[in-house]
């Protein structure tokens, strides 16, 4: 914890030193002493600045964590995905969106969907297969892009567990609070490179896809006990 306070202490110490020096020489009539102190302070500040450039380069930065996405790409991801899902077309969806896949065997006639653990308020889209092969194929698609940054990998995927005649959807645990910090270019640079500033409402893309897609045997009846809202698709139209 001491490390978080360190920079504040550093800045306050710097400010305090400056004020102390200035006050010491304020009353003095020695013009040259004042100027010397003053110049050395300014020189020290400049030296700190130049040192910080070097230090900044040397700092280990993990750039692999979050990718940058622009508005057009983000919107495309969203619209393409929903287009494919709408048609029940699983094969053409970008595999990068797949977070988890399950293949469960179920021979029963009725299946209850429940979500008791964790939070699952996302969409469930179901497609009936052409035959009764006793298998349920589930895929969880997820993509979270906010302000031009892809946070998808930050979210944990859900899990499915089949117990007797109930399919449990285990959602994300409640109360997760993540805090990131990012460096951005200044507005004087963005003005010429065309990059939108974070203040711009049309700033980079936004895409929020959290969809559980199930392909179930033809005659399987799904019971939605908790009112999750199941959307059925079949080759191009919602049922």
């Amino acid at each position, binding site marked *: 914890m001491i490390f978080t306070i360190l920079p*504040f202490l550093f800045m306050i110490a710097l400010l305090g030193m400056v004020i102390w020096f200035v006050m010491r020489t304020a009353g003095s009539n020695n013009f040259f002493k004042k100027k010397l102190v003053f110049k050395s302070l300014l020189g020290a500040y400049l030296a700190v600045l130049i040192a910080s*450039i070097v230090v900044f380069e040397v700092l280990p930065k993990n750039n692999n964590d979050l990718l940058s996405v622009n508005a057009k790409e983000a919107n495309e991801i969203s619209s393409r995905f929903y287009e494919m899902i709408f048609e029940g077309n699983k094969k053409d969806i970008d595999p990068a969106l797949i977070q988890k896949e399950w293949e469960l065997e179920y021979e029963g006639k009725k299946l209850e969907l429940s979500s008791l653990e964790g939070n699952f308020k996302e969409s469930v889209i179901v497609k009936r297969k052409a035959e009764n092969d006793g298998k349920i194929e589930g895929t969880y698609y997820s993509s979270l892009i906010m302000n031009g940054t892809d946070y998808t990998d930050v979210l944990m995927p859900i899990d499915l567990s089949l117990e007797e005649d109930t399919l449990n959807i285990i959602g994300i*645990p409640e109360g997760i609070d*993540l805090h990131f910090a990012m460096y951005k270019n200044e*507005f004087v*640079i963005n003005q010429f490179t065309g990059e939108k500033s*974070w203040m711009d409402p049309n700033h980079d893309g936004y895409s929020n896809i*959290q969809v559980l897609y199930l392909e179930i045997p033809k005659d399987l009846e799904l019971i939605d006990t908790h009112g999750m809202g199941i959307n059925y698709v079949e080759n191009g139209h919602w049922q």
Partner: protein
Amino acid sequence: MSLIETSLSDVVKKQYSFKMKVFYNVFGSLAMMQILSILFSLGGVGQSGFSSAGISIRTSYYSADMIIGFTMLWAFSTGTFITTKATRYDDFTFVANRVSSTIANALFLLVASVIGGTIAMLSGSLLKVLSYYVSDVKYGAGSSLIDAPLEFLMGMGAASLYVLLFSALGYLIGMLVQVSRLFIVVLPVLFVGTIIFGAINGFEEQLKAVFNFIFAEPSFLLFFLKIIMVSGLLFAASAAISNRMEVRK
């Protein structure tokens, strides 16, 4: 009286070097202003957030935006400071007229602006280093001097030009105030009033156009020309106004 005729450039040079020696204090206030703005920026200059069922993600953004803004403020106040009586009377020790005084002041403000803008961008690096320890920075984007030197240099140039513009504005307003104290009230009222009037009566497009004329200029060359032109006009206007104060009261 001197028997040697002095040329304009000689007088300007003498005045300029005098001002550089005497006004060194402004750089002290620049440094202090920037240290303060770094402290203010340590919490992030911007935030964005997302929350959905059970999960919330907040992102803080760090950049030198606030530091550059504070530097523009500093430039404005420095421009005003130079027009005060005490500093104007210093010019009477020289064989000077209003043109040479204005040019010397403009030169000084130009140098101060370049220093201010450059240091503001460098302070951005200091801020980023400090914020690295304050928050858990997950993603380091942005141009630094070594990653993209051309962009960084362009940023320094643009920041210096913005600061110059504000110093010229401050200088003109300082001059106006010297002519008549009434301007201290009239100018802010005029400024705020125009904005409010424009917003209410649907002149938003025109108001935005004025703002965008400089702030949304995408070509660096045009931006450079625009700022130089506007600053030149502001200084010329100040020179004309200072005519009224030729004689020591």
